[in-house]
């Protein structure tokens, strides 16, 4: 719940109708002059009187607006309820127009003609279908004389931002192949033996080992007590890179849909990785470049979701700069590097392949041409496929059509290789 009480600015101006009244009067004067007859001048009398008396009714009111928004952030597809409270020091006929930068207004209207006598409340709901930042306000209040020849515009209220976070997808089954692991227990196979599920090896029994870990077959074969060892599962660091640049091949709507899919995927991966206790960082390349150092917890998830909500297609700097300069700074060697890119340019693939020896690289490529027909799209898809094949030799590549289940695409790409040094 947020409430905004606001400063205001006001301006008075002649309306289009006021100018028409003036033109009518001048036209009648000219007609009288042209006809050399004063009789048409009589018609100017009611025009002037109506305008004059109307000005007497010009309101003298002080206005205030308060806004309440029920939520400051929503997930794409949810609604926000907005309540405007208009207060006036004197009865006034006002036109209220609120600004809503995105989404569709449902249940109520953001515009109203209102008789404000003391206080008047207006309420409406905005359906926010797409990820982004929705700006509400400022409110424009228009007061005028009864004939609306003059109008006084009040612009009240601060702009309230509602963050529309990306929808989450099912992002299971991707698996992580990082060989760098931290000290905390997690879900990534480490190079050490310890608690876990994967088999690591067999060693001689030592005092303190649990009896249930005794390998009876090996014990019978070797004649001394042997126990099974498991691979220790620990947390790792992950850096998610979202590429929303170089989308010139697509029209604006297609580019936005693709970036929405990328943001949803990145948000889902971040949630999943953070829940498992890993540290997650983010690099986004769109209209604005932004990066977040890997960190744990809910605060980091919130920062990632807000960054993804603001992501818009564009290209202020090439991606290879971000990858070559930022990755060594943000990510420890052999940690998990996840690139979400449509792979529309060879230099992006080259930059990623340069990182492959140093990190466990996973590339998820949403296909922007899925379901499209035509020779041009076909050629672009062939180019993209060849880049994927080239990249597939050095890292894992998941070809994903937005809208289709990601786990299925991940299964096609196979499991990650076990970390170097693991005996399994």
């Amino acid at each position: 719940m947020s409430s905004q009480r606001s400063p205001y600015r006001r301006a008075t101006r002649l309306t289009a109708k006021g100018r028409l009244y003036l033109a009518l009067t001048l036209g009648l004067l000219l007609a009288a002059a042209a006809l050399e007859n004063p009789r048409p001048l009589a018609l100017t009398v009611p025009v002037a009187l109506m305008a004059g008396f109307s000005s007497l009714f010009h309101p003298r009111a002080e206005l205030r607006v308060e806004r309440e928004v029920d939520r400051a952030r929503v997930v794409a597809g949810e609604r926000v309820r907005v309540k405007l409270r208009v207060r006036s020091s004197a009865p006034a006929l006002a036109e209220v127009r609120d600004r809503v930068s995105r989404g569709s207004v449902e249940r109520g209207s953001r515009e109203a003609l209102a008789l404000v006598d003391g206080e008047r409340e207006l309420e409406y709901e905005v359906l926010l279908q797409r990820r982004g930042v929705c700006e509400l306000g400022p409110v424009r209040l228009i007061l005028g004389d009864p004939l609306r020849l003059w109008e006084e515009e009040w612009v009240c209220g601060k702009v309230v931002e509602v963050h529309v976070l990306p929808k989450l997808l099912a992002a299971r089954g991707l698996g992580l192949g990082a060989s760098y692991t931290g000290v905390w227990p997690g879900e990534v196979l480490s190079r050490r033996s310890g608690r876990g599920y994967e088999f690591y090896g067999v060693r001689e029994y030592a005092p303190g080992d649990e009896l249930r870990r005794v390998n009876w077959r090996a014990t019978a074969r070797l004649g001394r007590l042997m126990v099974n060892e498991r691979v220790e599962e620990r947390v790792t660091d992950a850096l998610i890179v979202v590429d929303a640049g170089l989308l010139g091949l697509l029209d604006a709507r297609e580019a936005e849909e693709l970036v929405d899919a990328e943001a949803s995927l990145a948000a889902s991966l971040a949630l999943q990785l953070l829940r498992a206790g890993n540290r997650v960082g983010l690099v986004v390349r769109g209209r604005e470049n932004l990066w977040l150092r890997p960190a744990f917890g809910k605060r980091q998830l919130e920062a990632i979701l807000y960054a993804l909500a603001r992501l818009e297609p564009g290209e202020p700097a090439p991606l290879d700069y971000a990858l070559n300069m930022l990755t060594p700074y943000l990510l420890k060697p052999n940690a998990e590097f996840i690139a979400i890119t449509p792979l529309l340019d060879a230099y992006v693939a080259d930059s990623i392949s340069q990182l492959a020896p140093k990190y466990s690289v996973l590339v998820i490529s949403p296909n922007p041409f899925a379901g499209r027909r035509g020779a041009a799209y076909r050629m672009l898809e062939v180019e993209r496929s060849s880049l994927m094949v080239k990249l597939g030799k050095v890292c894992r590549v998941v070809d994903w059509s937005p809208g289709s289940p990601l786990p299925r695409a991940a299964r096609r790409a196979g499991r990650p290789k076990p970390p170097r040094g693991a005996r399994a």
Partner: protein
Amino acid sequence: MRRGLPTALVAASWIALSAALSVGAPPPVALASLLSTVPLAIGALTGLRPLLALAFAAQLPALVLASLRGSIALAALAMLAALYLAELADLLARAARVPDLGYVREATKRISAVAALSLVVTAGATAASEQLAPLLDPRVAIALLLTLALLALYWARERGG
């Protein structure tokens, strides 16, 4: 808010005014005056306010002709009636997108008050000027009215802030 009945009333009054002005007028002027009801009604119903300006412009030749041929006082009163009806139609047009009964009622009262005050003064002023008209040089009258209009504009701007 139902706007059909108020629009019908305004349109019927406009037709009556057009019929009164068309008596003795040349056919093109009379036809334009009568047909002006169509844009007026459509504008009031759909909220297309430029159509109202078109309707008024179509009515204007009949009003000017009435002032030239008949009584000045009656022509001025007809002009006042046309302005009043056009204002009501404009109010309905503005309320088409965001209807609010309270707003429309209050605005109608205020427009009617403005029209009533104008009616009183117009009737008096035009009745007096009927005697003066044959004696008054049109150039002097135009200069006088222009000065008055500029003064009124300046006054209104000052009031508006």
